[in-house]
């Protein structure tokens, strides 16, 4: 049992400057990832899950955004802890790719089209592990074989356009895994793939986690994927964590009205529960920046007057947290 989590995000806020003024797509987010654990972050697009992952990587656009509050504590391999929210560029660079790796949503565009797959993997290996050219190339082939790309030695000399989407995402995973990261951030890695390929890629990520003991922060909007891969789940809504729990309790007894509504939208569940099926209220036009009250209140079937006026705090209960005034009444 690990004593401290690998990654601990506390009260993180990210602010963007735009032409229409400032906005804060991530507000007071806290979550943690343990080694050998997959923590799924689930939410709609715009709920702040990708911004959170980019903040961990230090890849937020510098010109237009900043971390406006909170801390991202990462326990390094040498046992020390870095606060990634305030780390220097140099420190982030040494961690990125080496200890914290990331795979992205778009396998078609996330690889450099003018370099071979092997070159792109070898580049990271040479940088972080200090391998020479030949050893790095061998490592690239080894990694491609590890992610079950057939004929890896030959495939290493292929360019990304020679590969299918699923194959490219495997190559991305090979690249991410090439320097033995302790933490893998997967931002919707299966969203752009066919369903059958999705399942393979999920299995692959889970297998690699088991083999290496790395922690995985898995971003998705797909609850089916969450059910498949997560140990722990945080549900994001409008830049906040509204509920966080172990997978089992979350799926069996969702507490937050938003989580419940999401689960009710799953086809399998909806069928089983045909008679009292609830549909998530539609988004009420452009969601205005939340000034007061619960962010979910405008869409919540259980909302009362005070939900619109007083923002609920996170309440802890039995290993889970919920951000709702009325969860005890409606659950």
């Amino acid at each position, binding site marked *: 049992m690990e004593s401290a989590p690998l990654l601990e995000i506390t009260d993180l806020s990210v602010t963007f400057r735009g032409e229409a003024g400032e906005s804060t797509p991530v507000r007071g987010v806290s979550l943690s990832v343990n080694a050998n654990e997959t923590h799924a972050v689930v939410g709609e697009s715009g709920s702040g899950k990708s911004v959170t992952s980019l903040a961990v*990587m230090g*890849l937020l656009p510098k*010109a237009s955004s900043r971390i406006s509050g909170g801390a991202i504590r990462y326990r390094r391999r040498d046992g020390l802890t870095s606060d990634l929210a305030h780390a220097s560029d140099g420190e*982030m*660079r*040494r*961690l*990125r*790719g*080496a200890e914290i*790796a*990331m795979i*992205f949503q*778009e396998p078609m*565009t*996330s*690889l*450099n*089209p*003018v*370099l*071979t797959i092997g070159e792109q993997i070898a*580049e*990271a290996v040479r*940088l*972080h592990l200090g391998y020479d050219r030949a050893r790095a190339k061998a490592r690239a082939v080894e990694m491609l074989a590890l992610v079950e790309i057939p004929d890896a030695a030959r495939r290493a000399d292929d*360019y990304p*356009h020679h590969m299918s989407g699923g194959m490219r995402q495997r190559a*991305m995973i090979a*690249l991410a895994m090439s320097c033995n990261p302790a933490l893998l951030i997967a931002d919707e890695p299966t969203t752009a793939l066919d369903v059958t390929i999705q399942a393979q890629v999920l299995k692959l990520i889970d297998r690699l986690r088991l083999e290496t003991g790395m922690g995985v922060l898995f971003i998705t909007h797909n609850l089916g994927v969450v059910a498949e891969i997560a140990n722990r789940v945080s549900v994001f809504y409008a830049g906040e964590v509204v509920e966080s729990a172990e997978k089992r309790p979350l799926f069996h007894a969702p507490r937050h009205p938003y989580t419940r509504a999401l689960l009710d939208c799953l086809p399998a569940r909806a069928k089983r529960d045909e008679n009292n099926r609830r549909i998530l209220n539609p988004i009420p036009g452009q969601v205005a920046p939340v000034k007061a009250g619960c962010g979910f209140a405008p869409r919540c079937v259980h909302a009362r007057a005070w939900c619109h006026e007083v923002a609920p705090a996170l309440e802890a209960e039995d290993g889970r947290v919920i951000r709702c005034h009325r969860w005890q009444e409606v659950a």
Partner: protein
Amino acid sequence: MLKVIARRAFGLAIVLAIVGAMVFFLTRLAPGDPAALMLGDQASAEDIAKLRETYGLDRPVLVQFGLWLKEVFSGNLGHSIFLQRPVTQALAERAEPTFFLAVFSLLIAACIGIPAGIASAVWRGRMADQAISGFAMLAANIPSFWLGLIFIQIFSVRLGLFPVAGYGSPDAGLLERLRHLLLPASVLGIVNSALITRFTRASMLDVLDADFVRTARAKGLPERKVILRHAFGNALVPIVTVLGLTLALLIGGAIVTETVFGLPGIGNLVVSAVLRRDYPVIQGALLVVAAIYVLINLAIDVLYTLIDPRVRM
């Protein structure tokens, strides 16, 4: 690859045929007669007619065209009416200054334009970007003859660093001749760097936001490598295109600069040939320049395949 080259070679032949025909007939549409110009105001109609006969100018235009084509196919561009030597020889004599000037200018333009364009894109919207874009705007709008005169005034007349004009004596060494080219090449380099800067900037901006650039950063690569290897490597296709087109333009048309600096190049040759209606020289020079144009385009296409594996067949 070979297929591409073969296809382009076929294209080259067609372009040259069209250019040849157009040049031949258009030059003859212009008013004026080389024989009359050569003999001057005092010449009698009889003398002029005699001279026209000597050069075959009295025959029907189509017959002249046929004879010229026959010559061209045997590798002979004809005989200059005024220079008293074969057009190929006249061109060869003038080719060197033009060629070196073009290559030199392109080098200077690229050395200014590419780093400036990259810096401009990387620091988009900031002071450096605005300064570079302003400089590019200025450079694009400066007339080359004016900049040439200013440069001659400052560097040649005041500071005495460079020769005022010309290409050195015929027996001067290569270095001495290149020294004559430095000022005109700087002028053309600065003027042409503007377009290269803008293309580089636009092309870099396209790729700097690309997903694979984010992947490169996620690998932990230093920013310099992210920009030069991952971003610039993908921005090269438009940049190579504009470099090639600039080179072609420089070879075909550095006329003003050649005139200001008194360089005995192809531009000068063509201008005097046009003024004297020296048909064979005009035709020959334009045909050669057109051929170079097409060849440069072919070279650009070949370069594409080296830069971008997706173009390879």
